[in-house]
């Protein structure tokens, strides 16, 4: 049995003797002590409750129920708003991720398409089997009297014949003195030099062509387009050296492209171009265009530029 204060001998033994005649002093003292006890207990208890109130309970019990209700309402509204905003943000992010993935696919498609177009546009240096042909002005020590010096030098139209011959012979890429020949490339004489891609070229003219080496070499030797050039070369000692190579380098075009006048055609509805017509059947031409070379007989003075 635990020793409680009530089991103390003092409490059990004292009252029977003293209860009958409590002195006034004792009563006063007891009253004071009880008062102190009640007040002290009250204070202690109050303090404990104030501490509890700081956590919430006490203040709520004292405070207005309205504040509590409006706090709860406010927080619930906030929660609903947050939930909606979260859902919206997730949907938006989802959309962005999808779009981003699509754009990445599109980007890689376009990037590889551009890479392919760059090869066709001559912006990529190429190499492969082909021929290297070197053409020079006459090696004759001097132009004989009464001869036209023009016959002893190379002209733009002669080099154009070379290029046309190579393309017709199946060349895939061609350059002349390091200038890539493009769809917009022209060759024309200015004085004794040839302008190509706005660059001045002078002899010897070294033409690189990638393609079937045998076909290209044969074309340069034998094609009708080269007939006059080859004849003149023989007569006036214009050195021509054609060699087949396993690895012919053709450099990239280094100039600028500017399409100022051309626009993609409006292919919408009625603006559309009709499909390419089937090639008309060969028409019997009464006076067919001759295959004779570009310029007059070698002995004649070229009348061109």
């Amino acid at each position, binding site marked *: 049995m635990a020793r409680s204060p009530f089991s103390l001998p003092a409490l059990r033994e004292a009252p029977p003797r003293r209860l009958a005649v409590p002195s006034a002093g004792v009563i006063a003292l007891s009253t004071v002590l009880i008062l102190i006890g009640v007040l002290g207990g009250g204070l202690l208890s109050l303090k404990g409750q104030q501490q509890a109130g700081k956590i919430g309970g006490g203040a709520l019990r004292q405070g207005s129920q309205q504040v509590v209700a409006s706090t709860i309402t406010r927080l619930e509204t906030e929660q609903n708003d947050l939930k909606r905003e979260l859902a919206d943000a997730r949907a938006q992010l989802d959309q962005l991720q999808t779009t981003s993935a699509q754009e990445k696919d599109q980007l890689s498609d376009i990037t590889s398409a*551009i890479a392919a177009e760059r090869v066709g546009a001559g912006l990529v240096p190429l190499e492969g089997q082909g021929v290297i042909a070197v053409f020079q002005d006459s090696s004759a020590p001097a132009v004989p009297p009464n001869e036209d010096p023009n016959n002893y030098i190379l002209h733009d139209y002669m080099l154009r014949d070379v290029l046309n011959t190579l393309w017709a012979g199946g060349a895939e890429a061609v350059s002349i003195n390091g200038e890539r020949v493009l769809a917009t490339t022209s060759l024309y004489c200015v004085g004794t030099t040839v302008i190509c891609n706005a660059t001045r070229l002078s002899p010897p003219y070294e033409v690189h062509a990638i393609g079937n080496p045998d076909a290209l070499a044969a074309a340069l030797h034998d094609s009708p387009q080269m007939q006059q050039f080859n004849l003149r070369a023989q007569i006036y000692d214009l050195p021509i050296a054609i060699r087949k190579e396993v690895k012919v380098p053709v450099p990239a075009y280094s100039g600028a492209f500017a399409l100022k006048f051309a626009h993609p055609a409006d292919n919408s509805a009625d603006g559309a171009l009709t499909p390419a017509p089937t090639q008309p059947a060969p028409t019997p031409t009464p006076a067919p265009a001759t295959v004779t070379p570009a310029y007059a007989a070698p002995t004649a003075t070229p009348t061109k530029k």
Partner: protein
Amino acid sequence: MKSWPARLLVSAVCLLLGILMVPQFRSQPVNRNPADQSPDDQVSYISQLYRSNETQRVSLDALRADIAKYEAARIGGSSNLLSLINDLQQMKMLNGEVDISGPGVQVRVNGAGDVVQALQDLINELRASGAEAIAVNDVRLISRSVVTADADGHLLVDKQQISPPYLLEAIGDPTTLNNALERKGGLIEVLQQQQGSKIEIKVTPRNDVKDPIKLRKTALDLKWRYAKPTD
């Protein structure tokens, strides 16, 4: 009250009673209000709401940061994409792979002279004068294109046979192209000196925005059997 221990004991009991009594007095009026029966529940509900709202705000902030990142990347990506699409279109125009239109000149060539040479020279002259794209009898010229004649004298462009009258169409500055061909001592004069009345060449500038020259794309598909990009 003779002994101090007894007095102290009574005091302690009274103190205890006081402590026990005060909550009784205090809690009585609160218990009378039914709306306030579970303030502790309300407190814990409020703090729950606080916590979950706080958590949601944090994840919302994180989501919004992600969205901002994606959008920034997308703006960059889209303009990048647009400029790449434009680059690709330009390349395709240059390579003759799309139909194009624009101002320029039309050159009609007819006659029994050396039409192959005339066409080759005209093409070269038009290119030298800034022609951006050329077609011969509706066959678009690309870098590999060449006008030749077969053994029977029929004209071929890219191995397709073409028949007279021959029509060269070039997109570029109409005035520049026209003047380059028609000028004194220019190519047309030279060709006419060489071939005389055997050849007939007529240039028409085309400057009407509403009726531009239209060039169809090439039918050729470039094959690369021998050429490889340099490493």
